[in-house]
């Protein structure tokens, strides 16, 4: 059906109407073009306010309060433990030097009853043999550290006191992929050797971080289910039901599937945290670390994450890798690189004390290399204080029993 036209539909344009229309159209085009140009220029000269990184959608999963049971081998499906708010109540733990032989299953992330946390720093000027780390030197550093920390004279006995052969032990390393500084494989090897020497089957030991691919790039031998020590990343295997700083989070099934954790971070400066070492290393245990990198989210997030029972209750030992350090983070690849050759490892039950000592060490290294320490000290202070407030340990140097071993 044709639509009928109105009476003016066939009306011809007069010359005046044509000129008027032409002027309007041409002028309009010019104005529009100018506006477009103006808009482009504005975009070029006036940047928009940078937006924060997107916060991943998180699904709250009902938490079930089930304590982990000990089974001989790692399971693929861990049971989440209930979300909880960390408290500052201390569980009594044996004091170092008592010679007590059974430390297993006593919560290590609390201060000793006398309010002192022990941190051992073992230094060996000959730990580096050119580009390689000396296995023997590392063995001595680890052995002397564990005996000094526990007060047990024999290293094997000390390891056996901390870890039972039927336990599944996860070792959290730092192997961030777009970096050239990682937890050193030879140090981790010395630790896994010590665990096996103490009776823990290799298959009960898992080395993990965020992704399998980054572990591989950092030099770890990936082994999902073959004989020997297991090594793989969380990849996409997380369990929800946890909350920090009012946000739902998911934790690595590598962590949730184990009975005990050994945290082995590497020493780095960090643009947002000032320092990344023991406590912040668990950002690699969380699916959405990007959501907790500013303001309260980082200042409380670091402590609250470490205060979650699956991390707090499982963490049995912290071994700090300061064999190299990154004093200056970079804004191009590699985002962290070793720019300081160190000679130390630390060992402690207290992650907050570990970080306080590490910050002091990092600041010393920075001063040595004429790097400003202000940002690192200032950015680290709030989250260290918060971690102390919620009872994860102490950051106050006067409450830390620092044992320095010069080997």
């Amino acid at each position, binding site marked *: 059906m044709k639509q009928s036209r109105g009476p003016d539909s066939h009306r*011809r344009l007069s010359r005046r109407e044509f000129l008027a229309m032409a002027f309007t159209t041409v002028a309009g085009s010019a104005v529009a073009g100018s506006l477009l140009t103006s808009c482009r220029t504005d975009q*070029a000269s006036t*940047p928009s306010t940078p937006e924060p990184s997107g916060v991943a959608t998180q699904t709250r999963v009902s938490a079930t309060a089930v304590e982990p049971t000990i089974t001989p081998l790692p399971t693929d499906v861990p049971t989440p433990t209930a979300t909880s708010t960390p408290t500052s109540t201390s569980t009594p733990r044996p004091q170092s030097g008592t010679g007590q032989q059974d430390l297993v299953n006593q919560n290590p992330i609390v201060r000793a009853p006398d309010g002192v946390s022990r941190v051992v720093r073992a230094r060996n000027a000959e730990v580096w043999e050119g580009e390689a780390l000396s296995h023997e030197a590392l063995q001595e550093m680890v052995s002397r550290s564990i005996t000094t920390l526990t007060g047990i004279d024999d290293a094997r006995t000390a390891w056996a006191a901390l870890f039972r052969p039927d336990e599944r032990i996860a070792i959290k390393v730092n192997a961030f992929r777009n970096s050239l500084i990682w937890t050193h494989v030879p140090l981790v090897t010395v630790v896994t050797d010590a665990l096996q020497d103490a009776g823990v089957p290799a298959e009960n030991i898992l080395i993990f971080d965020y992704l399998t691919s980054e572990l591989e790039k950092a030099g770890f031998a990936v082994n999902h289910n073959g004989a020997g020590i297991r090594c793989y990343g969380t990849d996409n295997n997380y369990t929800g039901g946890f909350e920090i700083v009012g946000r739902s989070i998911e934790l690595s099934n590598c962590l949730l599937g184990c009975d005990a954790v050994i945290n082995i971070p590497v020493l780095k400066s960090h643009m947002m945290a000032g320092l990344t070492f023991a406590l912040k290393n668990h950002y690699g245990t969380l699916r959405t670390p990007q959501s907790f990198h500013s303001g309260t989210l980082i200042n409380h997030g670091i402590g609250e994450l470490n205060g979650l029972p699956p991390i707090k209750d499982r963490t049995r030992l912290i071994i700090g890798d300061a064999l190299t350090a990154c004093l200056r983070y970079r804004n191009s690849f590699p985002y962290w690189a070793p720019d300081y050759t160190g000679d130390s490892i630390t060992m402690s039950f207290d992650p907050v004390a570990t970080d306080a000592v590490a910050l002091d060490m990092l600041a010393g290294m920075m001063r040595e290399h004429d790097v400003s320490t202000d940002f690192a000290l200032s950015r680290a202070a709030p989250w260290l204080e918060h971690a102390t407030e919620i009872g994860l340990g102490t950051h106050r140097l006067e409450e830390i029993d620092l044992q320095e071993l010069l080997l």
Partner: protein
Amino acid sequence: MSKHPWIYLGTLLLVALCVGACARPTPSNSSPPSSGGEVDLAGVLSAGGELSDWSLDGEAELYDEETLFDLVNGQADAFYAYNFRRVAVQRYQGNSDGVLRIELWELATPHDAYGLFTRNVAGTPPAMSIGNDTDEDPGHRLAFWQDRYFVEARSFQRLPEGHLAEIAMAIARVLPHGGERPALMAALPAKDRIDHRAVFFRLEISVQDEIWLGGENILGLGPESEGVLARYEIAGTQAHLLLVQYPTDADATTALRRLQERNTAALAAAETRGPVLTALFSVLEPDAAQSWLQSVPISAP
């Protein structure tokens, strides 16, 4: 006219199109794509793979504002501070076993690209010039900026002379051309300046590792302000000179007051010159710092 109205309408349309086209921005170079358009970052990086000595090693990785963390972890804010848009990462395999990694960063404006470039300057100006400015660690690293793009090539082994430059030039040829340094850079006095490195910034976080101002934006930096931080040696003492240009004189005065109220120990002297805040951070005595500040010509761009 009345017999052929379509002729008039056709003429009208043609004239309108011509005028509209004239009003568009003209690219600084006719052959490269316009900086306003969507550049195929992976396509640009593939230009390096067309050289005889290099071949692409896998596909380019692309990251945007949502996924940047996967590339840079907790340093994403460093790039948001320069109005990050996208980045592509491409690896290349050399015929002689060399491995090369190139990152191509797309920012919102040429000033942002320049800023990110200055954050990464190593300290020694190279002999060659690629893009608008170049920085080089010979055989290992070469970086340049062009239009709103920052490019950095890094090799894991020392490469023969010219290899990095060759691949960088191949990329520069297909990137949009253009972009000028911010005018504020010219305001930096030459007297007592230690090196050519000066960080152009929009947010405090970009210079926090050189001067710590508390992380609370006491300078009141925003989209309309731009800053630069450079190193000096005054009477044998190291110093940082900070210049921030604000939209108005009043903004600069407010920033000066807030900076002085913070009582930063490292602040030796500060004043405003029109809309520009100038501040000297050093252990120099305040009188000496103030005297130096007044002795150097710093003019608002």
